[in-house]
């Protein structure tokens, strides 16, 4: 059984009376235990929202409207309160984008660990100060931090260190799935590399399912086994990571890939995507990327393309679907 099976996830965002913005539209996600999946897209495409939805962290004015989210067989979309809180132990965890501000400024790192361990205490857990310190040291070591960090306060740590502490705290719950929401976006490139290495090693060692949300395709391709591309609230492509740099893809994915240039090449071609993303407060007819797509046809403007096989995964594109069929038939 897959660890996570989400069907028909819809998230609507209602900032003022009468205003509705559909930030996630009809998304299906299936994750097996131990998979490392990347979720890419530009700002505003809904990837963070989806990550929050899957971990039941949506807050008003955003809400989950419809859909089933089966985590290890249990539909967590219908859970609330204490039941939901319990799911977070040995269940799913979320690491935030700004590890910078994810820590309580007036509590030491040791107290952070204590708070989490006590919130999910099971009989037999050693929750004495010494016990918490022991557990904390273990967890800090796994993210390559020294035990001395335990007595520090968040403002005494650098950005990268704070992000590692956040990861360590998430690990304290021994989750089977962790969603990393832009974990390295706010860090400089070198620290980014180090933190990503740590995340990759942890995922390999402990085998938890990981979702890496990022707008940086390079980071995602490097770390993950499988990549999902989001556009305007929908998943438009889903491929193994290795396949992404070759072959045919959804026109949006290809445009994204085009946006990256090798800084050491002699001649660099930078692409761009003309136009702007669609207005998510309007229902759409047809493919949401069609207005900006170089391959758009009649059918693209009227019918929403379903996810159909492409290369070793799937993509939501009429043109590519037709081409793929032609290859298979022929």
């Amino acid at each position, binding site marked *: 059984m897959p660890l996570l099976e989400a069907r028909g996830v819809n998230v609507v965002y209602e900032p003022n009376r009468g205003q509705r913005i559909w930030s996630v539209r009809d998304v299906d996600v299936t994750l097996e235990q131990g998979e490392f999946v990347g979720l890419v897209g530009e700002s505003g495409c809904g990837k963070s929202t989806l990550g929050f939805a899957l*971990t039941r*962290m949506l*807050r008003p004015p955003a809400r989950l409207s419809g859909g089933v989210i089966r985590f290890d067989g249990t539909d967590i979309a219908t859970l609330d309160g204490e039941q939901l*809180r*319990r*799911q*977070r*132990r040995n269940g799913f*965890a*979320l690491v*935030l984008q*700004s590890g*910078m*501000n*994810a*820590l*309580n*400024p*007036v*509590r*030491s790192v040791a107290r952070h660990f204590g*708070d*989490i361990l006590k*919130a*999910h205490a099971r009989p037999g857990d050693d929750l004495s100060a010494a016990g918490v310190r022991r557990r904390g040291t273990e967890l800090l070591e796994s993210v390559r931090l020294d035990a001395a960090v335990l007595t520090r*306060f968040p*403002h*005494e740590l650098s950005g990268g260190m704070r992000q590692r502490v*956040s990861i360590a*705290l*998430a690990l*304290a*719950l021994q989750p089977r799935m962790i969603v990393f929401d832009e974990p390295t976006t706010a860090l400089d490139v070198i620290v980014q590399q180090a933190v990503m290495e740590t995340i990759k090693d942890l995922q390999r060692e402990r085998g938890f399912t990981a979702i890496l949300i990022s707008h940086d395709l390079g980071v995602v391709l490097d770390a993950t086994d499988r990549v999902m591309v989001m556009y305007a609230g929908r998943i438009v492509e889903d491929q193994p990571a290795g396949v992404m740099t070759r072959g045919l893809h959804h026109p949006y994915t290809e445009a994204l890939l085009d946006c990256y240039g090798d800084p050491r090449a002699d001649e660099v071609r930078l692409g761009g995507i003309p136009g702007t993303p669609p207005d998510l407060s309007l229902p759409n007819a047809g493919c949401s990327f069609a207005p900006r797509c170089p391959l758009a046809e009649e059918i693209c403007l009227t019918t929403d393309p379903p996810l159909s096989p492409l290369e070793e995964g799937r993509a939501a594109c009429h043109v590519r679907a037709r081409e793929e069929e032609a290859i298979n038939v022929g």
Partner: protein
Amino acid sequence: MRYILRKVVLFVLTLWAAITLVFILPRLMPGSPVDAALGKLASAGVPITNAERAAVQAQLGAPHTSLFVQYGDYLRSIATLRFGTSYSFPSQTVALTIGKALPWTVVLVGATTVFAFVIGTLLGVYAGWRRGRLADSSVTIGATFFGAFPPFWLGLLLLYWLSFKYGWFPIKGGYSPGLTPKWSLSFLGNALDHSVLPALTLAITTLSGWVFGMRNNMINTLGEDYITFAEANGLRSRTVALLYAARNALLPNVTSFGLVLGAVVGGSVLVEGVYSYPGVGNLLYIAVTNHDFPLMQALFLVITLSMLVAIFIVDLFYVRLDPRVRSTA
């Protein structure tokens, strides 16, 4: 350490500035308060000795003397507590009059502030946490309404209903007439009885300041990422509300302690007047009604300085609350 040093320097500077302001005020005003004051003293039967004249002039202004000399005299008179005699209380010096009244006000204002701070903060936490729901609305509307009560009005009404009509509490004063203040249990009990209404009046009218401040801080704090992260890690609601949200939201409240204290002190002037409670506020009330300038000056000085000291103490206490100011970062 740097934080404490800064606070000490600020305290000393503000102290100096306040003293100087009190020095400047009567000398800017039209007319000659000195002659008026001396005249009134004379008619109250107070002998106008040289010392007396000197004291009054030091406070209110000596004609034909350079400002620098006046300033020196002024500072000296403060240091030696020679404020002269007040004609509202001709039998004792201003310093003594204020000295007798000060403890009453310190106890009243002190106890009320602590009480209002605690209750107000808790209500604010509650309203901020349950934002948008009935609990929040009722607390907010209630605090708005009660916070708009002029302290003297509420005092009068409580006096009328609870004291005059139903006789639950004594009508005026700090203690029953005929008793002499002393440290005995019966006296203290009597004093307590007399202080309930003034304290209640002050507490009700100043509560809202704390409630709103805390509520707004809570709402802002609840938008922070560490709250989201704590919830994502499955911490219990109560832990998040108190140890993560309220504990951080408290900080700006402490720094703005001075502002609300000012309101309490101001309110105490009006409330003590209404109840004839023998504190500093009541003295100010009497001084104003009698145009007793020497007394007013000295009172204003004492009130301002007391407030500055209280704020300074709270500022020092802040170090215990916020680890970010502890390091020299």
